[in-house]
């Protein structure tokens, strides 16, 4: 065959090698390649040379970027579609460039033509390798997929020329360009056979291995695959029936929601990611429900939904007054807060902490605040919460993961600026699972909570617009760092007068309404409510009172329902008939007191209480015995009182012999209730001195105050509650430390007017008011104004 001797255009290929006698379709669109083809197409013989790039990533190859062996080819067919040339080229002969390549307007060169290996090699080695190649090819035939087998079959059965067979194999098999070039460059038949054999052997090994792996995997995969296939079929059937896939319906619904929601950008991308995941999942997979729930939750969160605040202070005041009786200070503080929020809307929302005994209306004040400024109200109880994750949520990877309580409350509120009440913040538990109080630190810090991170949500949520209100019964149990972040508002217990007002204005009408009665069917006589308050309830709040009123109303409702027509006027006497005998007789007010007993005042979580300190002489006994579950501090104050009296016996007009010859027992009932604190000091001194002097203390006088061994009286806390307790108990004289005078300002006016206060700085002064029968210097000193 005569080969062209002049320069021929070069067509560079990126990932394939054209062998002689092989016809190959190509799609060409590189401009230089198109130019090369155009030139070849206008030639008489349609010759072109085809070379493979040694680096497929080069887009404009020059002669150096090509392998130095290529193929002379003839273009058999061509069709131009837009900028693409679809051509079919047939390899003719192997060529080596002479190395004088020109690059303009397209790569071209002239060539040495290599022998076509057509003369046969009869050596035994060649024959053996050739047979091995056929064997391997047949083996391969069994390992590859059926649709590929025809090609191989054709090579084996139809082609009689071994060279062509091998070139064809080289073209069809997925071998690397380097291997193909090696085949193309083989100088002899034997060399070609050897290269092919190596390539084939490796390929067969890989295929066998692949086969093995897939058959192993197959047994495992079988069940899943079966399910998958069935599900696909189900899907097809559903589509045929016009039923939408449930998953798609979900996703569509979410998309629609998102379109309506106007989410922040960052949230949107995150949700979109999850949606795409959801779309790919089957609704039966367990992950599907998790992801779906998650997206649902994210979309349900009020990312930028708010209510408009109404800072009409007069209106707010009116609402607060409507909802609650008295509580003047608290209301004032709240109005102040609202005023600040009105003047500076950018100011961080304050965090209030309402502290007071149960039933005084802490929760309902929160509701009133929300109502006053027109925000949504949501409340969550922290009582008994001991796991940090309850607040912050669990990471979504855990089974049963849920968002934290905070975000759940926000979601329930439906806006991102609700009034959120954290109830019972003093009753947070803590254990090995973490300290929820520590998590609250972040939530309640206005400087941090704009970036609140919930583990479940795994995105930041802005809590800075939320108005947090915490409630607690005592401050003692609130961790200091937490307390530090809150503005404490104290609600003391109600006096009987307060309760009367509350019952008349709020509780009784409400109960009547609930029972379906009107004010004419049930009327209360004047003295009935005070009697009920005094003898059927004993508490700082009004919850028990409301319950009792409820009971009363129900009894009457029963009568009305049974057909009683005439209206019922309830007198105190009738109360006994309706509610049973009175529950609380003022048994605690002892009148008169025997020597050795004094009325102390105690502060408890449920308000104040009158606490009697009893002392008894033990003739012939020794030392000081203390009972009544007294704490260390209280025991010490008892000892201090005893020592003070002993050391000042003569000054107090007490016979030292009585002290020396007898032991003394101090008891504080009720014995089952633990008590502690220093404020019973004065009561201890009073009880002991009355005991030793054998004169009774005044039964109409209650007292509180810490004492020192030197005879000083130090201030104590909870004055308001204590005074109210005395007032409730009908004890109207109270001895207080001088330093507590300021606390009396908190007292309701009617109480303050009724009470008589004695502000004392030293024990002697106190005793003169409490144990008037004490002889000796006390009287003289007090009267003479010459105080110790």
């Amino acid at each position: 065959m005569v080969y062209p001797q002049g320069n021929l255009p070069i067509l560079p290929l990126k990932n394939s090698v054209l062998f002689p006698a092989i016809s190959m379709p190509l799609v060409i669109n590189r401009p230089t390649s198109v130019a090369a083809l155009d030139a070849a197409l206008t030639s008489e013989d349609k010759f072109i040379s085809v070379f493979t790039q040694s680096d497929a990533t080069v887009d404009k190859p020059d002669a150096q970027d090509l392998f130095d062996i290529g193929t002379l080819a003839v273009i058999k067919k061509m069709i131009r579609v837009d900028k693409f040339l679809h051509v079919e080229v047939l390899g003719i002969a192997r060529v080596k460039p002479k190395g004088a390549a020109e690059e303009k307007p397209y790569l071209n060169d002239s060539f040495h033509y290599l022998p076509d290996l057509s003369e046969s090699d009869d050596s035994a080695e060649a024959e053996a390798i050739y047979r091995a190649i056929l064997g391997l090819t047949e083996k391969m035939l069994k390992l590859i997929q059926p649709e590929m087998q025809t090609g191989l079959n054709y090579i084996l059965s139809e082609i009689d020329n071994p060279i062509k067979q091998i070139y064809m194999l080289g073209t069809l098999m997925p071998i690397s360009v380097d291997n193909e070039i090696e085949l193309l460059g083989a100088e002899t038949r034997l060399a070609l056979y050897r290269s092919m054999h190596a390539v084939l052997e490796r390929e067969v090994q890989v295929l066998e291995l692949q086969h093995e792996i897939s058959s192993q995997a197959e047994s495992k995969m079988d069940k899943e695959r079966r399910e998958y296939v069935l599900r696909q079929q189900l899907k097809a059937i559903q589509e045929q029936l016009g039923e939408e896939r449930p998953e798609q319906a979900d996703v569509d619904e979410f998309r629609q929601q998102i379109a309506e929601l106007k989410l922040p950008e960052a949230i949107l991308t995150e949700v979109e990611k999850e949606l795409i995941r959801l779309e790919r999942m089957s609704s039966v997979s367990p992950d599907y429900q998790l992801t779906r729930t998650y997206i649902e939750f994210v979309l349900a969160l009020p990312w930028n939904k708010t209510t408009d605040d109404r800072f009409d202070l007069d209106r707010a005041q009116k609402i607060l007054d409507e909802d609650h009786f008295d509580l003047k200070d608290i209301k004032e503080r709240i109005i102040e807060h609202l005023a600040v929020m009105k003047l500076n809307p950018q100011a961080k929302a304050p965090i209030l902490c309402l502290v007071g005994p149960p039933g005084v209306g802490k929760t309902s004040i929160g509701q009133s605040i929300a109502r006053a400024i027109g925000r949504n109200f949501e409340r969550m109880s922290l009582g008994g919460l001991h796991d940090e994750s309850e607040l912050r949520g669990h990471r979504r990877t855990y089974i049963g993961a849920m968002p934290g309580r905070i975000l759940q409350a926000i979601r329930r509120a439906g806006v991102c600026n609700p009034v959120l009440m954290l109830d019972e913040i003093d009753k947070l538990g803590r254990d090995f699972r973490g300290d929820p109080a520590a998590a609250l630190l972040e939530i309640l810090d206005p400087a941090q909570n704009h970036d609140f991170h919930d583990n479940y949500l795994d995105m930041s949520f802005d809590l800075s617009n939320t108005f947090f209100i915490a409630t607690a019964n005592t401050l003692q149990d609130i961790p200091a760092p937490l307390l530090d972040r809150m503005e404490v508002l104290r609600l003391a217990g109600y006096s009987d007068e307060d309760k009367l007002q509350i019952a008349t204005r709020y509780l009784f009408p409400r109960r009547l309404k609930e029972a379906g009665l009107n004010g004419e069917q049930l009327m209360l006589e004047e003295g009935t409510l005070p009697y009920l308050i005094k003898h059927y309830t004993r508490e700082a709040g009004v919850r028990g009172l409301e319950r009792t009123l409820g009971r009363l109303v129900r009894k009457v409702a029963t009568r009305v329902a049974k057909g009683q027509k005439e209206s019922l006027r309830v007198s105190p006497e009738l109360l006994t008939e309706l509610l049973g005998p009175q529950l609380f007789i003022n048994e605690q007010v002892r009148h008169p007191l025997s020597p050795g007993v004094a009325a102390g005042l105690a502060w408890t979580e449920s308000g104040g209480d009158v606490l009697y300190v009893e002392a008894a002489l033990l003739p012939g006994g020794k030392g000081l015995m203390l009972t009544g579950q007294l704490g260390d501090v209280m025991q010490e104050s008892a000892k201090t009182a005893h020592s003070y009296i002993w050391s000042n016996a003569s000054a107090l007009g007490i016979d030292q012999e009585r002290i020396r010859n007898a032991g003394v027992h101090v008891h504080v009932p009720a014995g089952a209730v633990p008590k502690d604190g220093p404020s019973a000091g004065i009561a201890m001194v009073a009880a002991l001195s009355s005991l030793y002097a054998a004169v009774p203390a005044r039964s109409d006088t209650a007292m509180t105050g810490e004492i020192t061994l030197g005879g000083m009286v130090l201030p104590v806390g909870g004055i308001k509650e204590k005074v109210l307790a005395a007032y409730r108990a009908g004890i109207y004289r109270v001895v207080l430390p001088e330093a507590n005078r300021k606390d009396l300002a908190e007292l309701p006016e009617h109480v303050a007017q009724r009470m008589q206060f004695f502000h004392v700085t030293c024990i002697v002064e106190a005793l003169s008011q409490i144990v008037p029968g004490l002889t000796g210097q006390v009287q003289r000193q007090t009267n003479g104004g010459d105080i110790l």
Partner: protein
Amino acid sequence: MKYLKSISVEGVPGAVWSPPADIYKCGKQWLVKVELAGVSKTDIQLQVRGSRLIIRGVRRDRQVLQNQISQSMEIAYNRFERVFEFSRALEGAAIQTEYLDGMLLITIATGGQA
């Protein structure tokens, strides 16, 4: 594998295409009609080897100008080859050729039964 559907291997080595042909028989005479449009008479070779009749040659694209740009090409150029196998040796048979309207007509009159 890679190009399975469209790759083909040429049956005849060294040739790019092979022309279509009609064969007629009339008594002891054969007429072989080969479509060789555009092939110059001087570029056709006829060979007899045993019972084979071999037609070879080259079709050159002489109608194209340098400034023309090919838009579509369906006619194969360059070398062609076509081999006809007869049931008996052709040596000694009377072979006549005629090139008419792009068709090569080959008349073979064998001595005995074909």
